Structures are given as structure tokens and as C-alpha cells.
């Protein structure tokens, strides 16, 4: 197990390097740059800006400096657009925000999704099943950019219970709507995956044996069916968790939560090279870590899987 984890971590290094090189090249291949604007800058001003941010150097030099900055000083460089801030500062401020509402949304999506999925499978073709399936399909087709304004309309404008946006240091009232808007679609997906995998597991021999020896239904489900039914869900949960804690541009923009999700899109549109690289790397590292975690969990759930 330990040697498996170490091996995976070693492979992560070239993976991240490849991520840097490919992102760097793609970013520079996109037309326009951070200082391309409608009010065109005079040549001298542009030259000064390029010199200040190192854009006057060949791309390999820029890339080398970038990697060295991270390795030697854990410095992701200055933002090209948000001039008063470094990429480290932007991520340090924005990531805790999305980490907070993203993890709560994850817990909500997983618990409700699991419950719905299991109930639907166990009581297949009953009203409970139809209700759960109906709910999850409804939730899935309701994208968060539609759900978010509806929530604000109801809870802010009509009922006046919750503030329409802002973060205020993560005050719970400011988290409720972002969490619901983020969790809903994921919850629906989880419920549907759990339902179908549970239905499959319930037809397996060992479940029939368990039932035959007279175990009560809840024990059959929890002790014998749940673990194997979770395997397909797990592979979905790794990347899902990463994409939830790195936020969503819709949530950050609509609820003004100032999270990292907004910078994802902003940085790309602004050609804010350093910020774009910073956020891409953050997502890259998190993806590698959580995929590894999922693999370790597999082995724990299913002893047939050897690491």
C-alpha cells in the first residue's frame, strides 16, 4: 500500500510538469495577451509592461522562471490584471471560500443522493422510487444558473430570510443558497448512480444468500449490499469533490462569494497568464490527490482490489 502511494506520488511530478507545459503553450497560443485592449497601449508602454512581467523573454525562459519560482519560493507570480495582488494571495483568499461551500455542498449531495438512491433501489417501482427518480431528474435538468436566481427570488426578495449574496467571512446565512445551488445537480447524479448500482448488487448471489438466511432487510442493505454498490459512486466522487471545492463560476458570480471559481473563467478571458496557471495547477494537484485517495478507498471497500 505504502509503496503504491509513493509510486503514485512520484508519477504526479511528471504529470504536473506536463500540465504546466501544455497549459503554458495553449495559453500563449490563444490570440491576444493580458495587455491587449480596445484603448491600445502605445508601443513604449506595452514594452515596459512586457519587461515588467517577463513577457519579453522567449517562452521557454518564461516557463523555466515560472517553474523555478514555484519550486524555490512557492511563488506563483503576480497577477497580470489584479495589479495589487499576487496569485498566491488571490488563491489564499478565494480557495477557502469555495472549499467551505463546496465541502458542505459535497456532504449534502452525497448524503441526500445516497439516501435517495438506496431507497429508490430497495423499493424499486414503488411510489418512493418514482418520487426519488423524479426528484433527481428534476434536479439534474435544473442548471445552477437557473436555480440560483430562483433561490434569491424566493429567499431574499419574497421571504426576506437570507441575504442575496456576499460572503461575510462565511457566515452561515451567506452559505445556504450557494450550497443548495451547488449541491442539487450533483445530488441528482449521485442518486441515479447509486440506484442503478444498488439494483445490480441486489441481484447478486451473496445478497440472495443473506436474505435466505433470514437477515432483516436493513442489515442486508447496510452490511452486504452498500459496500459493493458504492464502488461506481466512488470513482465519480473523486473528481466531483475537486470540482466542488474549486467552486463554480456561476455560484461565485451570482452570489458574489469571491471564491476561486470566478477566477477560473476571469483569468482565461483576461489572459491573466499567471493566475490562469495558478488555478490550473491548484485543480491539477487536487485532482491527483483525490484520485489517489479514491484508489486507496477502493482497496478498503473491496478486498479483491490489490494495490
Amino acid at each position, binding site marked *: 500500500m505504502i509503496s503504491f502511494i509513493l509510486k503514485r506520488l512520484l508519477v504526479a511530478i511528471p504529470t504536473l510538469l506536463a500540465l504546466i507545459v501544455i497549459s503554458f503553450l495553449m495559453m500563449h497560443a490563444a490570440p491576444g495577451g493580458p495587455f491587449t485592449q480596445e484603448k491600445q497601449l502605445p508601443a513604449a508602454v506595452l514594452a515596459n509592461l512586457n519587461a515588467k512581467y517577463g513577457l519579453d523573454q522567449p517562452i521557454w525562459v518564461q516557463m523555466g522562471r515560472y517553474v523555478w519560482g514555484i519550486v524555490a519560493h512557492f511563488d506563483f507570480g503576480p497577477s497580470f490584471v489584479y495589479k495589487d495582488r499576487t496569485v498566491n494571495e488571490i488563491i489564499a483568499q478565494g480557495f477557502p471560500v469555495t472549499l467551505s461551500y463546496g465541502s458542505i455542498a459535497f456532504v449534502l449531495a452525497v448524503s441526500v443522493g445516497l439516501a435517495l438512491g438506496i431507497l429508490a433501489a430497495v423499493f424499486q417501482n414503488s411510489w418512493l422510487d418514482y418520487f426519488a427518480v423524479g426528484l433527481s431528474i428534476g434536479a439534474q435538468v435544473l442548471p445552477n444558473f437557473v436555480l440560483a*436566481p430562483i433561490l434569491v427570488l424566493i429567499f431574499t426578495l419574497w421571504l426576506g430570510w437570507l441575504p442575496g449574496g456576499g460572503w461575510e467571512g462565511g457566515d452561515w446565512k451567506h452559505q445556504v443558497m450557494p450550497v443548495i445551488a451547488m449541491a442539487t445537480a450533483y445530488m441528482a447524479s449521485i442518486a441515479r448512480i447509486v440506484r442503478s448500482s444498488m439494483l445490480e448488487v441486489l441481484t447478486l448471489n451473496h445478497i440472495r444468500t443473506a436474505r435466505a438466511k433470514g437477515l432483516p432487510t436493513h442489515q442486508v442493505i447496510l452490511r452486504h449490499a452498500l459496500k459493493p454498490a458504492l464502488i461506481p459512486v466512488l470513482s465519480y466522487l473523486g473528481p466531483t469533490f475537486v470540482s466542488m471545492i474549486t467552486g463554480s463560476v456561476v455560484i461565485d458570480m451570482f452570489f458574489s462569494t469571491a471564491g476561486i471559481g470566478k477566477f477560473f473563467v476571469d483569468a482565461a478571458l483576461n489572459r491573466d497568464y499567471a493566475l490562469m496557471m495558478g488555478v490550473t495547477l491548484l485543480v491539477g494537484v487536487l485532482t491527483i490527490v483525490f484520485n489517489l485517495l479514491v484508489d486507496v478507498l477502493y482497496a478498503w471497500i473491496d478486498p479483491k482490489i490489490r494495490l
Partner: protein
Amino acid sequence: MKKHLLLSTVVILAALPALADKNPRTGEELAANQAYTYRMLDSVKSLDPQLISSVEDSDVARGLFEGLFNEDGDGNLVPAGAVSFTVSDDKLTYTFKLRPESKWSDGTQVTAADYVYGWQRLVDPALASEYAYYLELAQVKNAADITAGKTPAADLGIKAIDPLTLQVTLDNPIPYFTKMLTNSATFPAPKAAIDKFGADWTKPANIVTNGAYLLTDFIDGEKYVEEKNPNYWDAANVIMSPITALVINDEDAALTRYQAGELDRTDVPAGQYPHLKEQFPAEAISTPYACAYDYIINLTEGKGNEALKDVRVRKALSYAVDRDVIVNNILQGGQTAAYSWTPPAINGYVLPDIDYSHWTQAERNEKAKALLAEAGYGPDHPLTLTLNYNTSDAHKKIAVAIQQMWKQTLGVELTPNNYEWKVHTDKLIAGDFEMARYAWCADYNEASTFLDLYASYSTNNDGKFSNADYDTLLKDAKGMADPSANYTAAEQILATEMPIIPIYHYAKVDMVKPDLKGLPQHDVMQFWYSKDLYRIKQ
């Protein structure tokens, strides 16, 4: 007796706030709540006056800092950091007397040296400010050479004669020099703080300011809070505090929060003005804004569409645009149809008599058909064109409407091409377009900020329009005491040569709480100062 005295003192003290509850300038009765919260489109990119390049940043900066002049609600200059100034006979040397009671928030005096430092920093290649060209535009001596690295920053045409006397030398006289001094790029800079903290000097803990407000809370991307600065020279007249800017990217979300009472002012989303005006007549407000929207025609040799090099074709296309449909049916926010490039509301600008602006649309269409036929295009030889625009709902609607107008009136086949913002701009700069959507907002309240753009020597003249008379008129204007006749003549050349198709002039369309006063009503720059705001008792 003693007891009575005590009691009456208490009574008088309790009554004091009521006595002070009037606006000292207007005498209006004030509300108890003097907090102001407004929607800001995007996070602040910088609070360093010399690095500021966006409207949002300068809105915040005008509360925190102050330069030589401010603008009043009508766009006129009001002395701020300067109390008076004199100009030499050759109009090349300006001498400003600074306000002795003006202080930095660390208690030190704002001196001429702080202005010298600020201006030198602005053009210094090491700071690499995007607004470095501003002093070159203002004709300040050696500004361009310093930015290009040919001369040290110390050679800039600005010096401190004594702590309260500032002298600025220009390369060429320009009549609107003082009007350019309300821009945050020309604000003084606190050298001690910048030397001590470097790029971190604008962080809330480090920042030193000289304006009516202090930065008290700052969560980037979420909110910025300013509170009244008790050491400000005019603090007695500052009423509104605290000032809170909330970053809300989505304008519909902002409108909902305004309606829920979380905001005092927000922008009206496109197309929603008419029904909001009907529902909230006292709150939906549209005022002219110094920006113009046009389609540039590429006249670069060997680039663009050859048909467009014929002035008859350009005129036909411009005449056939029914601007009233665009402003009244698409934008619906009090924008005005444009037949000139410069917005008529610009200070001191006299609009020329542009012939086609008086015609009816039917007359314009007739004339357009005749011109296009004369140029050799018709049903058997149809004109096909492309138009670039950047991704936005409003741009798309306008492009589709114009596509229809040209098709119906002239039989022209227009293909609108939608590009992401940076790609659009990149193509503009590279001259890779036939026609392109363009917009420009004034840097200062004077017509040259618009007209200079289409001079053949302008870096922003992406269509490469070139007209010797036009250039001469604008060059001569720089040395004139009253250049307005030249501006009028230059605008007339644009209408005759039609290198651009002017479409509409902007309006700032806001929802504003009815008790909020002090926002500019007639300043096309839309410069508003938190220190001029107040809420009246209702």
C-alpha cells in the same frame, strides 16, 4: 440650580444632533442613516492611483485620494488639492498653489513634492503603468521620452518650487490641460509609504491616503468599505459614511439585491429600463454618459473589403442604419441615436450641422439606395460584407438588426462574426477585419478625447483613416484658446468621409434610492464623489 444647569446641559447636548441634521451646503434636512452601499461590476484591479485603469477602481480611488481638481455635478472643475493656478503667456507653464490644510492620513502635509513623485512614477518604465501615456497626452514635457526609457524620470516637466507651489511645463500648449487633472493618474503619491511597503502599500493596513475617506475594510472581490476621514480638509462638509462597494458581477443579481434593500444604487440591465421606469419612476434614472458606439470601417491599404474604400458605399451603409430602432427598441435605456462620433453633451463641444441627421429614415434609405447603385452595387451585383463584434447579447442584437436593415434597404449581405473579447481586440489591432464594433469612453471632458482617435497618427486609429485636413485641424486645435470651431470642422469631415458608422451615444442607467442626493446629473464623465453624497429625510 446646579442640578438645573446639569439638566439643561443634557437637554442641549441631546438636541445637538438634531441641529446638525442639515446639509451645511444646501440646508436640506438629513436622514439619520447616512450609509451608502452601491454595486460594483468587478473587483478592484488596483488602488494605486498611478496604476488604476478601470472605471470601478477610479470610483473607489476618488473617495480615498484627491488630486488638484475635482468635478462638480455639471462637470465643471472645482479646486481640490490646488486652491488656485496661473498660466504663463505662452500657455506652457502652469503654476499651482496647493491647499495648506490638505493632509495625508498619516498626518503629514500633502506637498508639491508628492505630486512630483506621483507624476514621475506614472511615466517611469519601472512602474509600467498602463496609463503612462496620459501625461504624454497632456503634453507634459518629456513624458513620452521617459516612458520610452530615453530620459530619466527626473526630467519630467514638473517641479516643486516650494512645498505649496507646483509648477508644470508642457511641450505644447493644450487648452484643456486643467480638465485632464481630475483623472486619478495625476493624483499625488505618498512616497514614504510606497518606499516602505513597495507593491503592498495599497493593502488596508499600509495604505496612506489624502481624500475624504479612509479605507477601513477590504475583502478583495467581495467588498470595499470607506469611512469618513476626520483629517480631511473639508471634513465638515462630508456627510455620507460609511461607503460600501459590493462586487456583484451579475447585473440581474444586483437588481434583485437592490429591490431587497441591500443596495442604494445599481445598474439597470439592458432592456429593463422602460418597465422599471414605469414601476419606480423616482428611482430609474438615465443620464448621458461620455461614450460612443460605432462600427469602424477598415480603410487600410491591402486589407479589409475593397468596396468599402468607396465613400459612397460607406455613406450608403451609414444612412441605412435606423438608429432610432436601435436605441428605442433594442437598448431602451435612454441612449441617443448618434450621427456624430463625439457625444453632443461633451463640455464646450459644438455639434456641426450634419445633413443626414435631419433627414427622415425614409429619406436616408432613398439616398442610401441611390449611392449604392451609383457605386455599382445592386441586385445583380450584391455587396457582401463581414462585421466583427465581441461576445455580448447587446452587440449581437444590434448586429442582427443592422444586418436586416442593410439587407432590406440595400440588398447587402452582411455576415456578423462573433469573437471572444481578446480575439476581437487582437483582430482590430492587426487590421484583420472589414468592419468592427468599437466603443470609446472619454478620458477627459473635452472633444479631443474622441476626435484625436481618428487622426492618421493616432495609435488607436484601427481603420487607418487618413485625412490631411482632419490632422491639421486637430494639430492646430492644441494651440488654440478656444478650439471648438476646429472640433466642429473635424467632426464634419467624419460625416463627409464616413470612416466610421456612428450608432449611439451611451447613457448611464441606474436604479437609485430616492432619498440619495448628490450624484452628478449633468456630468457626462459620470465622476461621482462620495463626499458630495447625502441622504435627505423623507
